[in-house]
């Protein structure tokens, strides 16, 4: 799909600009950073998965983290949220030093995440999933839990909040079903809605679009944009470049564990380092046209690619002949 065919957004919302201080470069300082990370390194045996010298995530903006497979995006996510421990490095969230802090404490500070492989709690109902997200529940203490009069009032408030969110995410009709009965896309929505129950300041989404059908994509994008309007900060990992262009205010590009580029999406997509490392020079070329299966006009990039393909074919044919 080329960018021309991308579904038009119903109402283009303004991007947040002027997030950085000074010249744009990997690790540039931000005007109002929510996360400041320094010297984060994580190795798995001989492999350095993450090696980030300095990175700052701007507050009240949507930041995309992109990069090829194995670039260390999810590992960085896990480190920032306390699900993994770095070999070295320190980082702050909203002024709190987070290094060495457990995942649940990080979440309590208002930094909540979702997972690449959706984690809906299958044998809890949709409503129970939502209620679980709320913070500081009196009844979550075993002794106080035994006395309903202590937590009933809070429980009612939580339920009210959950129903409002479920309505917004169009899951209210499913509220008493087991989460296991939801479709993949609905589970993504549920996971996001559940994360919002904790009233976070930073929402971290790991591939929110993976496996979501195009019809649902638009509403999911709107939900993410709404988060910004409500004063939250969003950091997400995504491979879908249209989504990144469409909603991100700032893009951070990782490759081989390092931040190789960052900037506003339009600028970053033109960066030669990013094109080489991730996008490839033929990002807008329809493969069907190149291989001749679909009639269409080839632009210069596509002509180059078609020639490359021909050369490769010729080489392979040669190799086969000499092989025999």
């Amino acid at each position, binding site marked *: 799909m080329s960018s021309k065919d991308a579904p038009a957004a119903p109402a283009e919302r303004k991007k947040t600009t002027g997030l950085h201080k000074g010249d744009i470069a990997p690790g540039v300082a931000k005007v109002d950073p929510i996360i400041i990370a320094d010297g984060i390194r994580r190795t798995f045996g001989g492999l350095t998965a993450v090696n980030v010298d300095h990175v700052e995530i701007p507050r009240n903006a949507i930041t995309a983290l992109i990069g090829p497979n194995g670039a260390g995006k999810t590992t960085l996510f896990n480190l920032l949220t306390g699900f993994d421990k770095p070999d070295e490095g320190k980082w702050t969230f909203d002024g709190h030093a987070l290094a060495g802090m457990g995942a*649940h404490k990080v979440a309590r500070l208002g930094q909540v995440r979702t997972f690449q492989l959706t984690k809906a709690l299958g044998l809890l109902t949709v409503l129970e999933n939502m*209620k679980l997200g709320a913070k500081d529940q009196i*009844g*979550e203490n075993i002794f106080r839990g035994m006395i*309903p009069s202590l937590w009933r009032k809070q429980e009612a408030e939580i339920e009210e909040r959950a129903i409002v969110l479920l309505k917004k995410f169009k899951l209210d009709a499913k509220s008493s079903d*087991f989460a296991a009965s939801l479709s993949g896309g609905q589970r993504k929505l549920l996971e996001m809605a559940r994360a919002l*129950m904790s009233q976070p300041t930073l929402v971290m989404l790991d591939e929110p679009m993976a496996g979501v059908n195009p019809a649902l994509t638009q509403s999911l994008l709107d939900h993410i944009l709404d988060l910004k309007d409500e004063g939250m900060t969003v950091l997400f990992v995504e491979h879908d470049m249209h989504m990144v262009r469409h909603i991100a205010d700032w893009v951070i590009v990782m490759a081989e564990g390092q931040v190789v580029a960052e900037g506003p999406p339009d600028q970053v997509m033109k960066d030669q380092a990013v094109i080489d490392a991730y996008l490839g020079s033929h990002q807008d070329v329809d493969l069907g046209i190149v291989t001749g299966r679909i009639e269409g006009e080839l632009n210069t990039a596509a002509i180059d690619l078609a020639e490359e393909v021909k050369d490769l074919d010729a080489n392979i044919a040669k190799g086969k002949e000499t092989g025999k």
Partner: protein
Amino acid sequence: MDILQILSNTGSSLIAPATIGYALAALGLAMHFGFTGLLNMGVAAFMAIGAYGYAISILTFGFPWWGGMLVGVGGSIVFALILGIPTLRLRGDYLAIVTIAAAEVVRLLFLTTTFDEYTGSADGLSGYHASFRSFNPIPDGTYGFGPWEYNANGWWVRIFGITILAICALILWAVMRSPWGRVIKGIREDEDAVRALGKNVFSYKLQSLMLGGVFGAMGGIIYALPASVNPGVYVTSLTFFVYTALLLGGAATIFGPIIGSVIFWGVQTLLSNLLPALVNIGVLPFMTTTQSQTVRFILVGVALMLLVIYRPQGILGNKKELTFVK
């Protein structure tokens, strides 16, 4: 073949202290396995610690009966902590291996002759009844009807056991309907998701292990209350029997473990009476009466397999809530 006697024995087993003991242990296991998803294979150890804690503190240290029970329950909490702190970071199957090993360690510690003075090693312990019986409010005599005819001490043990069972079931029901229970069920489904929502998963799992452990210890105490503490009881197969009772009733239910234990013991008693009788009258010519006692344990194994395959939710479980199918 005395059919009346067989039925009478079977009826009597329905409220036997052993049945109540199993029900309590299965209730604890429902907490561990059914609700929290902890594959605890050390049920026998929790029961042993309860029973030995009770008997040793009475026999060796002269505690009153309630003091002995507190020691047994306290011991199980300490055991849950020792077991839980290093192992609850492990996932599913690893926890099963560690708990089964820990249960064997506990059993062998009670069995070794080194502590014979306190544990009675292979002979076990007995003769600790005076204190408990002295609190018996029921006047001497025989009460009841049909299969359920017991003397004052027999009724005192049963009434006490059923009361404890009711209290434990009430506690389990109260905590599982609370937000605490919601977190616990969430952990069963996916602990990382729950962690990402700001819950201290490790602490919740430890609490679950302790609460279920207390139920298990009470089960061990009730089991040993009318007769003696016998180290041959607390073997790994006890754990599997409790699992059978639990799965029979429904792993993630409150009444399931209780009903499961009653049915388990009812069927066990029926078979242990019926099979030898059938052998004696020549209906089962291919086996001896001794072999027929082994056959009933084979049948338990077959029943466990059939249950897990065809009715994993148990008798009372929600059909949609299959803990085995994910």
